[in-house]
Structure formats: structure tokens, C-alpha cells
């Protein structure tokens, strides 16, 4: 216990030091003329405002809880089907990538147009949950011990016997780990929907409503409460998992969209499946609109968007605005992502040189995994203003932490003997790093890139929407104001499409490179 306790103690010491620095900096108004208040000021304000909180907290909690339940039901159900049928998994690959990669802020306005009341918030919370739980279920079910399944089969057990007796029980740790990560995602989804959807109650709405008032202490108070709720939701499931099965593994989950084994079927079937994979997301879109029964004027089907962008009288103006917005959004997305990944890579690599320095940082990085980071953009507005540097920092902050955790945890998996080998021949740290650590980190660098592509776009769009008045995020927000329904749907579709294309591009490059190097992709 001594080591664990001293680690915990060190973590607490780091936290305490950070809090003291925060308080001093805050009291002296050192950051952007008081944009960062001291902890004591924030807490006092929280106390004063406390009367406002219950209704906001309740609204956010309500949407995220219902969304969490629905998202998990869908995720586990779909996961079971995908684990049983590789064809279904392949067919839904397009839908699953879209679910993973879509920037929630882009589809929030669409949900608000087509659904009513709390439904948009619930839908976005459920969407944030679905992918994580689905992936965890598929992986958990397919990782079943083959010897155990052989035992069941040897006694004449059916597919269902195997599922019931071996796979479900074996998948439990994976699914519980999924729920842990999914819980804060639900809170984040609900808050993002509140940003994008208007409405009076909810922590997101409260945050947005207080942004214009120049009261940093109140904004920080709301941010603190939102973070606490997300962190608690993680903690509850972490506790549940460790109580029931002792599964207290990582706070991150794989970013890979589960993939079925290579197809050996006839070419015709293969082509049909590929076509199905691409068409299915659009079918889901179309079916969603038909199901909600919202008039054509407001809701656009895929064809409606094509018509708006290419054939309608206003098509040319729409194209110009869209391209201008893309020209603003894309460069900064890539710069921010590259910077976030670059910092994370350097830090993870150097953590192998001085493990002690990173030991203190790792808990902080892990905690950020449970924080609704993008939802804290309004706080960054206070500090950084409404310029490009805001967009850049939001993007870096939402990409850096997950990338660092992925890389650091991946590097920890490099077998000791692989690093011992150069050392046994007297290699210095640098040679060891050059020959082993850096090449070995490549799969995790790709995994981190996959993870951060959609987050970078989300970060940029949030900053544009809430603060800078540029790019796709702003176009979306403006179109809302102008009731330009065609543009709302177009921006949503384009940003989802871009995210999916970038994700898929990374996957293709990753496969090529790693195959040539004889390495496996990091799941």
C-alpha cells in the first residue's frame, strides 16, 4: 500500500499546489484583468447564486440521464447484433463512424428544428453515449475466451448458450468501462445541445446567458458545477465497476470503429455491402425526417440539401458562403490539431526520459478526460477574448489531453524487454528512444489522431459559434437567426461528412503505414 498511498499523496499535493497558485493568481487579477477569479471568489459567488442552480442542474441532469439510458439501450442492443453478425457490423460502419465523428454542435440546431422540448438534448446526450457503449459491447463480446467457448460447444451448446454463459459475463468489464466513459459524455452532449438549442434552463443555457454580463466569477462557478457533475457521473460508474468486478482500468476507450474480419465472400456481395455502408447514413437521415413529420420547408432530406446547394436560385450565394466558411475553419482545425498532437507526443515521449515528472501530471490529464472541456469554452473567452487565439487554444486543449493519455498509456505497453535490449548493449536514453520508443509509439500516434480529428473540428466550431464569429460555426449560428433552414442542414451535413472523411483518411494511411512496418493497429 505504501507506494499507492504515496502516489495518492503526491497527487493531492500537486492539486493543492495548483489550487494555491490559482487563488493567488486570481486574487491579484493576473490573468486578463481578472478573467480568472480566485477560488474563494468563485465559491462565494456560487453561494450567492445558489438559488438559481437547482433548476439548471435539474434540466441538465434530466436530459443527460434519459439520454444516457436511451443511448446505452441502443448501444448494447446494437453491440450484441454487431457481435453476432459481421455483415450487420459492416453495413452499419458508415453510420457508426458518423456517430463517432460528428461534431455535436453541428447537429444540435437540426435536432432543435425537428424535435421539441427536451428531446433535442436527450438525443444529443444519447448520441454521445451510443458509440462508446456500442464499441465496448462489441469488443467485450468478441474478446471472449475461445477455450471457454470451445468447452460450451464441445457439450453441444448453441450460439445462444455461448452468448449467455461465456460472452455476456466476459463482456461485463468492457461494458462497465464503457459506461464510465459514456456517463460524462452524456452530460457534455446535453450541455452542447443547450448551447445550440436555446431554452431557458440547463447549465449550458445558464453559461451562455451569463457570458455577455462580464461576471467571471459566476461563469467559473457554472463551469465548476458542470465539471463536478460530469466527474461525479464518471466516479459513480467507476465505483460500481470496481465494486462488482474489480474492473478499474483506463478512463479512455479505444477510438477505433470496430471492424469485421476481412471479407471472403463473393465480389457482388462485397460491392453491395460497401454501397450499403455508404448509403445507410443517408437513409437514416431520410427516415429520421419522415418519422418526425416536420414540413419540407424546415427539414431537408439529403436530396433537399443537394437541391439547396446546387439547383435552387440561391445556390450560388450558398456555395460562396459555405466555401468562405470552410476556408476559415479548416486551416485552424488542422493547425490546432497538429499542435495538440505535437505537444502530446513530445510530452509522452519525454515522459519516458523522466517518468517522475510525468507521474505528477498524469492524474491531471486523466481528470480532464471526465471534464466537459468544450463546454468550458465560455471561460476561455473571458481569458483569451474573441480572436483566433481563442479558437486555437480551445482546439489544442480538447485535442492535447486525450492524445496525451492515449500515447502515454500506449507507450506503457511497450514490453520491458524491447527497451532492455539496447540498454543491455550500453545504449543511452536517446538511442533507446530512437530505436524503440519512438517507432513503438507510432500505432498510438495514429490512434490519437483518429481520436482527435472530430474533437478538433468540434472545438473550432464551438469557438466560432460562441465567440469569434467566423467559419462554419458562425455560419451555422447565423443561419439559425436568419431562419435559413437550407444552410443549417447543409452546414450540419458538410461538417459531419468532413469529419467522416478525415477519420477515414487517417484510418487508410494508418493501415498502409503500419502494415508496411509489420505493426498492428492500436485498438
Amino acid at each position, binding site marked *: 500500500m505504501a507506494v499507492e*498511498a504515496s502516489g495518492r499523496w503526491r497527487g493531492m499535493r500537486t492539486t493543492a499546489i495548483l489550487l494555491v497558485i490559482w487563488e493567488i493568481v486570481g486574487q491579484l487579477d493576473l490573468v486578463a484583468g481578472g478573467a480568472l477569479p480566485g477560488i474563494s471568489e468563485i465559491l462565494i459567488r456560487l453561494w450567492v447564486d445558489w438559488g438559481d442552480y437547482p433548476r439548471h442542474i435539474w434540466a441538465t441532469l434530466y436530459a443527460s440521464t434519459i439520454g444516457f439510458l436511451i443511448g446505452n439501450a441502443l448501444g448494447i442492443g446494437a453491440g450484441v447484433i454487431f457481435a453476432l453478425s459481421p455483415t450487420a457490423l459492416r453495413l452499419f460502419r458508415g453510420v457508426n463512424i458518423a456517430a463517432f465523428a460528428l461534431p455535436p454542435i453541428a447537429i444540435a440546431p437540426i435536432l432543435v428544428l425537428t424535435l421539441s422540448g427536451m428531446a433535442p438534448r436527450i438525443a444529443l446526450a444519447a448520441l454521445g453515449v451510443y458509440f462508446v457503449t456500442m464499441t465496448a459491447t462489441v469488443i467485450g463480446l468478441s474478446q471472449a475466451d475461445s477455450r471457454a467457448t470451445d468447452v460450451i460447444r464441445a457439450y453441444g451448446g448453441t450460439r445462444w448458450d455461448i452468448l449467455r454463459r461465456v460472452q455476456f459475463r466476459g463482456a461485463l468489464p468492457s461494458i462497465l468501462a464503457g459506461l464510465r466513459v459514456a456517463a460524462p459524455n452524456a452530460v457534455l452532449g446535453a450541455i452542447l445541445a443547450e448551447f445550440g438549442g436555446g431554452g431557458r434552463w440547463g447549465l449550458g443555457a445558464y453559461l451562455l446567458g451569463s457570458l455577455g454580463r462580464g461576471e467571471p466569477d459566476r461563469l467559473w462557478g457554472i463551469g465548476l458545477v458542470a465539471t463536478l457533475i460530469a466527474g461525479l457521473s464518471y466516479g459513480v460508474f467507476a465505483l460500481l465497476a470496481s465494486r462488482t468486478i474489480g474492473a478499474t482500468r483506463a478512463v479512455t476507450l479505444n477510438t477505433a470503429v470496430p471492424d469485421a474480419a476481412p471479407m471472403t465472400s463473393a465480389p457482388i456481395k462485397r460491392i453491395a455491402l460497401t454501397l450499403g455502408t455508404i448509403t445507410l447514413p443517408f437513409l437514416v437521415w431520410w427516415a429520421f425526417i419522415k418519422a418526425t413529420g416536420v414540413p419540407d420547408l424546415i427539414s431537408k432530406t439529403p436530396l433537399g440539401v443537394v437541391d439547396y446547394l446546387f439547383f435552387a436560385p440561391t445556390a450560388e450565394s450558398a456555395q460562396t458562403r459555405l466555401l468562405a466558411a470552410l476556408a476559415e475553419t479548416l486551416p485552424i482545425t488542422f493547425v490546432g490539431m497538429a499542435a495538440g498532437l505535437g505537444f502530446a507526443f513530445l510530452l509522452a515521449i519525454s515522459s519516458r526520459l523522466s517518468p517522475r515528472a510525468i507521474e505528477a501530471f498524469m492524474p491531471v490529464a486523466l481528470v480532464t478526460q471526465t471534464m466537459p472541456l468544450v463546454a468550458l469554452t465560455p471561460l476561455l473567452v473571458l481569458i483569451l477574448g474573441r480572436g483566433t487565439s481563442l479558437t486555437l487554444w480551445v482546439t489544442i486543449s480538447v485535442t492535447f489531453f486525450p492524445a496525451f493519455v492515449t500515447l502515454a498509456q500506449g507507450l506503457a505497453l511497450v514490453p520491458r524487454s*524491447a527497451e532492455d*535490449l539496447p540498454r*543491455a*548493449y550500453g545504449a543511452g536514453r536517446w538511442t533507446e528512444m530512437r530505436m*524503440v520508443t519512438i*517507432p513503438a509509439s507510432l500505432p498510438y500516434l495514429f490512434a490519437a489522431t483518429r481520436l482527435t480529428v472530430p474533437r478538433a473540428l468540434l472545438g473550432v466550431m464551438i469557438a466560432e459559434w460562441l465567440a469569434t464569429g467566423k467559419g462554419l460555426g458562425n455560419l451555422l449560428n447565423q443561419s439559425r437567426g436568419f431562419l435559413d433552414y437550407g444552410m443549417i442542414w447543409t452546414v450540419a451535413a458538410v461538417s459531419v461528412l468532413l469529419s467522416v472523411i478525415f477519420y477515414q483518411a487517417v484510418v487508410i494511411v494508418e493501415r498502409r503505414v503500419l502494415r508496411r512496418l*509489420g505493426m498492428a493497429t492500436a485498438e
Partner: protein
Amino acid sequence: MSAPDGISLSGVCKTFTGRGKVVEALRDVTLSGPMGSFTAIIGPSGCGKSTVMRIALGLEAADAGEVQIAGTVPMQAAKAGKTGVAFQDAALLPWRSVRRNIEVPLEVLGRSVAPETAHIQHMIDLVGLKGYENALPGELSGGMRQRVSIARALVTHPQILFMDEPFGALDQILRRQMNLELQRIWTETGSTALLVTHGIDEAVFLADRVVVMHANPGRIVDVIDIGFDRPRAPALFSDPEFHKVCDHIAEVLHGG
């Protein structure tokens, strides 16, 4: 007790602290492998036999005691290229071909590869991997990977050869074959060898002396000299004398 050109550990102690438990991994381990000798260490899991090797390689520092490898401290010997090592798992770099994996020690030592090309090919032939020079480790079987790691251990013409269960992943037939090969290589090169193993027959067949260790704390309980003539032929495996020695070691091993 002086073995200036071989392996010499005297009074080595090592404790590990982990999860609040203090484990006495090695207590007063004294061991000498004179130049040109073949020493095998045998013992149950957790008896510290791998730790002995890691200390002799300079990968761990001893808490107390003295370690001399080829007349100097372990790291010095390593940097001078006097040692070769094969680990329990093959520890190949998955992104390097068989040949490039075998070149790793040369690169680390800053030697040029070109003059060694013929030697490298010879090592590849020796371990029976002719034709696989450009294969990646992922394309090889476990046994083949293990053989790459043995070729790699030999590439520097080491004076001292460390092997941590190098044949653990091989099947019995291949293992016998590799035992014979190893004996031949060791005789040819005149190197000093330290072999950590689980297999009693392997240890008796190869070694001049077998060091038996016990766990909790990790310590040497007996050193048994093996006197069979060299070169030893496969027939030795079925010799009654051979079995008598093996049985005796098994008794010592199990606390008899």
C-alpha cells in the same frame, strides 16, 4: 574467487519494494563463471534467477555486493561490446526485418554493419533462418523469433553470452536441436556462458556447473559440477548417469 575475464558476483543482495511489500529478491548471491565456462542457473519461478542476469547485464543495480563482467563493471563490459544477450521473450522490434533485428546490437554499439555482413548471414544460417532474412517478426512462428534473438545475441562475437530461458518457446525436438547448436557455438567461440533455464535436462546437458536457487528470499542453495566429457552427444540424454544427475538436481530443487 577471482575470475577476471569471466562472470563474477559476490555477496549480491537486492530487494524490491512494490505495492507496499518488500521482496527480498536476492540474498548474498555469490557465483563465478570462469572464462570459457558454461554456467546454468535453475530454480522455481520468483527465485530471482532472472534478476541475477539483469544485474550481471547492468540493467539493475545491486543493493550490495560486487559484480565483475569481463574484468569490469557490467555497463562497461556492455559498452565495450563484450556481452551478448537473449531474453526470455524474443524482444524483437516488430518493424524491423530479421536481418535488421540482428543488426540492432551493432547499431547500438556504433559499429558499422558492412564488415559484418558475412557474419550476420552466417548467424542467420546457423539458426536455420536462411531465406527469412527480410521477413518481419509478425510473419514468423514463436520458435523462429526465438532463434532470431539467439542470432542477435551472437552477432557481436561476445566474450560473454547471457541467455534467459532462450528456448522456452520452442518445442522439445527443436529445443534439443538448439541445445546441440548452442554447445557447438559455445565451443567454437570459446565464450563464457550464463544460461537461466527451467529445464533440468537442458541445464545438465549444456553446463559445466548448475547453480540451484530457491525463492523467498532468492538465494543459491547448491552448485553442482557436471563432469560429462565434451563434446556431449545427443545420446547423453538417454544415459543412466545423466538421469542420476538430473534426479539429484530435482531433489535439491524441491528442497530435498
